[in-house]
């Protein structure tokens, strides 16, 4: 059941320049799944729409959600000023999340690039599999890396070569010499396209989390569609709604 409700800020910290780590106390945490997202509402009346932000982590007693986001505009800039005890309106939980059954007991690559790293964390916690975690960063500000280390082998790629493999997560895979049965990924579109190609070549499954400009977040407005290979069950055209049919799709199903 989706709802819009007020969450209470438990803490906020800046993990890296412009990357913020926010814990929110909310009933939505009870049923939140890795790969799902929430909509966070700015208070400023000039910015009305909820900002879709992936769930990074759920606390142990399932009473709070962690979101890690980049300040990219007026809305996220406002959120970065939230302090312990503040209240903020959120909409959730939204989207389908990563399919845990697909990779269960198999060799899995969990891949996050840039601000696509955070949603991989809760997945790393919940996925019961042989996990190799590939994290791609711009530079040496390796936010969340330590959080991942208890859930699998972590391989880092940095664009500037300051840490781990120089290059992107695909380069890190090549450097590792590892293979996988299933891939889970979130990150920028070029990364997801590379993963789609890689999975196709290897003949393996890849589940990728997509982004698009959204308005409603609940599937009503048809703003955030992605082209699909087959006619979509809901739209009856080659468009699926990222907010509700996704954000996670099997890579081969979407034309990106």
């Amino acid at each position, binding site marked *: 059941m989706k709802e819009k409700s007020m969450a209470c800020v438990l803490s906020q910290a800046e993990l890296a320049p412009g990357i913020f780590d926010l814990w929110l106390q909310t009933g939505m945490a009870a049923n939140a799944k890795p790969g799902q997202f929430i909509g966070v509402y700015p208070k400023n009346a000039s910015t*009305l729409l*909820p900002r879709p932000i992936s769930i990074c982590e759920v606390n142990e007693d399932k009473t709070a959600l962690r979101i890690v986001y980049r300040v990219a505009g007026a809305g996220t800039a406002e959120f970065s000023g939230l302090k312990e005890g503040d209240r903020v309106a959120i909409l959730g939980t939204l989207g389908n999340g990563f399919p845990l059954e697909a990779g269960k007991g198999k060799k899995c690559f969990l891949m996050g690039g840039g601000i696509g790293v955070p949603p991989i964390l809760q997945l790393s916690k919940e996925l019961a599999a042989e996990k190799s975690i590939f994290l791609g960063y711009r530079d040496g500000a390796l936010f969340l890396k330590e959080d991942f280390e208890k859930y699998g082998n972590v391989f880092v790629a940095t664009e500037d070569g300051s840490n781990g493999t120089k290059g992107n997560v695909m380069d890190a895979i090549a450097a590792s010499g590892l293979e996988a049965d299933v891939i889970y990924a979130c990150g920028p579109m070029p990364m997801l396209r590379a993963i789609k190609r890689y999975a196709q070549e290897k003949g393996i499954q890849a589940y990728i989390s997509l982004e698009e*400009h959204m*308005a*409603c*977040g609940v599937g009503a*407005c048809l703003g955030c569609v992605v082209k699909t290979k087959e006619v979509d069950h809901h739209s009856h*055209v080659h468009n699926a709604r990222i907010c509700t049919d996704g954000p996670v799709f099997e890579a081969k199903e979407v034309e990106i």
Partner: protein
Amino acid sequence: MNTEVNLAGITLKNPVMTGSGTFGSGMEYGEFVDLNCLGAVVTKGVANVPWPGNPTPRVAEVYGGMLNAIGLQNPGIDVFMERDIPFLKQYDTKIIVNVCGKSVEDYLEVVDKLGEEPAVAMLEINVSCPNVKEGAIAFGQKADALYNITSQIKKHAKQPIIMKLSPNVTDITEMARAAEAAGADALSLINTITGMKIDIHRRKFALANKTGGMSGPAIKPIAVRMVYQTAQAVKIPIIGMGGIADAEDAIEFLLAGATAVSVGAMNFVNPYATVEVIKGIEDYMSKYNVEKLTDLIGAVRE
């Protein structure tokens, strides 16, 4: 307290409906609000065949509102009648189907099929979508073209027809009078206002379609003005819309002359907006001892 309104012979339990394209066919927001509470559900526009709509990005935020260029993506009338109407029939609310097309024939095909479905209370004819190049907007910005399509649809329609007018015109009353003269049973206004946003850092249009339809509180004063002007110009009832976020906004439209109101883009901001507007109107009526909602319609004074 009586919140009923009569819209071209159809009685709504209250004047609050949903703006076409902002509420799907009710399934999505049915998780947030009890659809039985609504005066009517106005569905997303449906054409004779499935439409894929425009490329993304389709939406962009602007100050106090948003732009959209969905391009009337829809699954086509056949799927709609098999899936969406049976869903809505479960609820005690009026079903108003928004109809779109690229030619008069497209519209008539949809209108004819819907004529066979008695559960559909009214048809809202979208001749004002700014995001579809062929057809749609062409019918909505010239009075003679609007007259022509309205009269042709009226001949086919089994249900009362509501013509949804474009605000992107010099004189809204000229359009309203043309629709009325052609037999329209009611008018919806306003549709979105054509706008544009440019990302100055990438120096690119925010929308793939370059322009989009603007909605949200930012456009409300323009909508209220057009509803007022139209109410002075025609006798048929008006469904007022444009940035309605709360009961105060809805009442402003009623006072300006609207018989009913639609909550549109603000559903995206507050998924409970429709029922909160209904409750707020009742509170206002209690506070000011208004017994019949109809006493508020056009009740603004100088």
